[in-house]
């Protein structure tokens, strides 16, 4: 069972990244759930979502001890780095987080996601870079499922963005 927290500023694509993973899990016929932090604090404030991918019926949809945390800004790093379960994985956006994890019981991967996204010419794909890192580091969902999910999540008129998203995914894989 994968219990994932994704966190960052509103507008960084945190919720969408969570939905992508959830959608991909559903395509693979796994039990999946997605739960967002909600409310007015989302706009411009910090936001996060819980994603659970399991073989069997899911209990609590609210992740308290993540097997993986993907954090995109400094406040989220402070909040979730200590919560990752022993043996878990922390992926963080080193473009905006100037910190190092002190933990030796988890795997930590720093990815300059914004920098890579800027290089690709679209700041909005920073989240997909981090997804690439996740896909390479774990087998939570398959890349094909993500590609299928993209087609479903993006409206038809944005389908021309799929190659860029897949490129971002590939760049993220390099960080392990």
């Amino acid at each position, binding site marked *: 069972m994968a219990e994932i927290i994704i966190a960052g*500023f509103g*507008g960084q694509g945190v919720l969408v990244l969570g939905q992508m993973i959830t959608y991909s899990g559903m395509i693979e016929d796994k039990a999946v759930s997605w739960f967002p932090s909600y409310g007015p604090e989302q706009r*411009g*404030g910090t936001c996060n979502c819980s994603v659970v991918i399991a073989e069997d019926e899911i209990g609590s949809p609210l992740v308290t001890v993540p097997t993986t945390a993907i954090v995109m*800004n400094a406040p989220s790093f402070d909040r979730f780095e200590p919560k990752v379960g022993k043996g878990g994985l922390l992926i963080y956006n080193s473009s*905006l987080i100037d910190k190092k994890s002190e933990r030796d019981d988890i795997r930590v991967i720093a990815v300059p996601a914004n920098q890579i996204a800027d290089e690709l010419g679209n700041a909005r794909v920073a989240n997909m870079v981090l997804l690439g890192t996740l896909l390479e580091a774990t087998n939570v969902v398959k890349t094909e499922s993500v590609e299928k999910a993209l087609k479903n999540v993006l409206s038809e008129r944005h389908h021309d963005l799929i190659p860029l998203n897949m490129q971002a995914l590939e760049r993220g894989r390099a960080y392990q």
Partner: protein
Amino acid sequence: MPRGQVIVNQELCKECSLCVVACPHGVLAIGKAINKKGYHPVEAVAPEKCTGCTMCAVMCPDVVLTIKRKSPERK
């Protein structure tokens, strides 16, 4: 020596640009720095042009700006 001075409380700024548009002299622009909330606060890019007219501060929704002026002309 400019007639006026605009002081920006960077952490309160939400990068809405209302002050940038309100300023009749092009004193302000959105900057490159990032504040703790992830916004790029406004900066006085042409401080020498400031007349201290307060139009920027009048439009600011977050009371980010404090304005100083040499001998207030009117009010």
